[in-house]
């Protein structure tokens, strides 16, 4: 549970916490409506990897990423991150765990009427006293962490603007800053560029890569475009009907591999282009 920042210079927040690994054993996810999201997934993701999870919509990508921070409960099997069990965590324990795992969404999921800064400070909720949250005030240290996160994604100048006034790419950067403000051990990204145009998509993927390379944080990113998976992943996991059908280096994944993952011939829409 090391949430304190260790490293050079007391008071600075630059040092990233140690990255976490992920271990999934025989994970089954069955939703209340009977749909099976994951069907017997065994997976080891090492700390510091940048993993691209590919598959068509409905293949279980979202289920996979959401079991890692407990947003989707597992029906059976075990999920561990770092040294902690996710599937058995409840209440305070689960919130503390989630507080150390950043998450980025396809539709950004910002409070549109709140300022950029307020949205990034959502990443500090587990560190903030409830009375402070209710009054809408944050400690100077939390604000400093939020500003630094905004600086890292290059939109510090937008701090006091309303989130909904930003472009899609900028909004996704705010979401990345919100995740970074958590000083996470692990970042999950669920189709982070599916709502963005190609150049912006590459910029946001570049931001995620820098988080992985410069801060050493483990990154798991869901994608459905094979060229993005090839370019940015250091490892690729292919999902189909809730099971892992490919696991290996993305560079070696031929078009035939993608056809196997997708269960159909490739189309022009399966790549982003640039």
């Amino acid at each position, binding site marked *: 549970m090391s949430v304190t920042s260790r490293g050079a210079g007391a008071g600075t927040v630059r040092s990233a916490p140690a990255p976490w690994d992920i271990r999934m054993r025989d994970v089954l996810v069955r939703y209340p409506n009977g749909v099976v999201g994951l069907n017997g997934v065994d997976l080891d993701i090492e700390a510091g990897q940048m993993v691209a999870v590919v598959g068509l919509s409905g293949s279980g990508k979202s289920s996979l990423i959401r079991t890692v921070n407990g947003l989707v409960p597992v029906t059976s099997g075990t999920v561990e991150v770092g040294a902690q069990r996710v599937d058995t965590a409840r209440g305070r324990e689960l919130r503390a765990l989630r507080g150390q795992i950043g998450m980025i969404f396809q539709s950004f999921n910002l409070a549109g009427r709140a300022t950029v800064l307020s949205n990034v400070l*959502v990443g500090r909720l587990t560190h903030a006293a409830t009375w402070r*949250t*209710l009054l809408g005030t944050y400690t100077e240290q939390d604000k400093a962490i939020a500003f630094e996160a905004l600086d890292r994604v290059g939109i510090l100048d937008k701090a006091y603007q309303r989130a909904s006034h930003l472009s899609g790419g900028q909004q996704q950067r705010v979401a990345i800053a919100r995740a970074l403000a958590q000083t996470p051990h692990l970042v999950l990204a669920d189709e982070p560029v599916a709502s963005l145009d190609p150049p912006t998509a590459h910029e946001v993927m570049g931001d995620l890569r820098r988080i992985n390379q410069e801060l050493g944080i483990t990154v798991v990113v869901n994608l459905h475009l094979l060229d993005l998976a090839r370019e940015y992943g250091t490892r690729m996991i292919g999902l189909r009907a809730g099971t892992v059908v490919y696991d290996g280096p993305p560079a070696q994944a031929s078009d035939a591999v993608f056809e196997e993952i997708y269960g159909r011939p490739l189309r022009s829409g399966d790549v982003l282009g640039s």
Partner: protein
Amino acid sequence: MSQVVTADGRVLTVPPRPRGRHRTVLAWVAVLAVLAVTALTMAPRVGIDADLSAVAGHWRNGASKIVALLAPDWAFFPRTVEPLVQTLQMAVIATAIGAVVSLPLSLWAARPTNPDRWSRGALRVLLNIVRAVPELLYAAVLVAMVGVGALPGIIALVLFDVGIIVKLVSEQIEAADTGPLEAATAAGGTQLQVNRSVAVPDVLPGFLNQTLYVLELNVRASAVLGLVGAGGLGLLIDAVRSFYRYDQLSLIILEILVVVVVIDSASAAIRRRLV
């Protein structure tokens, strides 16, 4: 399958309209059923026995009152000032208290901001009861409990306001995108923290909108509440009506109209700034 010829001569094969016939027939049956039920409710003995011939027989009685209403007694104005001010005070105080109570209750009553089905359901049942009771009945009971004056009127209005605001605002929360709430939950916030930091900023304009609307309703409602002794213009309305002074009643109605129009235009201006 039917065929349509376009302007440039191509033939399009249009899929058949799904169950079109049945739907049209059903719609007509429904319209006729509504008409039949309406006619039935007005029929003698079975329904409410609405006798339209009575209108022809008695319209003169009403007409004389309408004539009196068309000539307001302006000299009556000074006596209306104090009750009018009291009505406004009641409306403002009740709206303020109602709004403060309603915001947390709205979050409590909406599914995205309160996943616990039981506490949410309990509050909803309570609010349905609060809304089902007419504010005039609250006022009548409260006058008996705390005495004649503005206080019972204010309490009755607060209950009325909470019922309305919580219903409308919680429905707004349920209709909104839950993505931001999910993101804050994923960041490890408690439900209280998530609601405060994400739900409140997004719901605030709608909430203020309903509050302004309720203020307008309160001005009108507080005039009625006076009829049972709960302060404000209503007491005066009751007095002048019992003396058949429709010219004075007319002035009071005009004053309420002016106040409502002023509040409406003011809230419209505020709303433009909010959105």
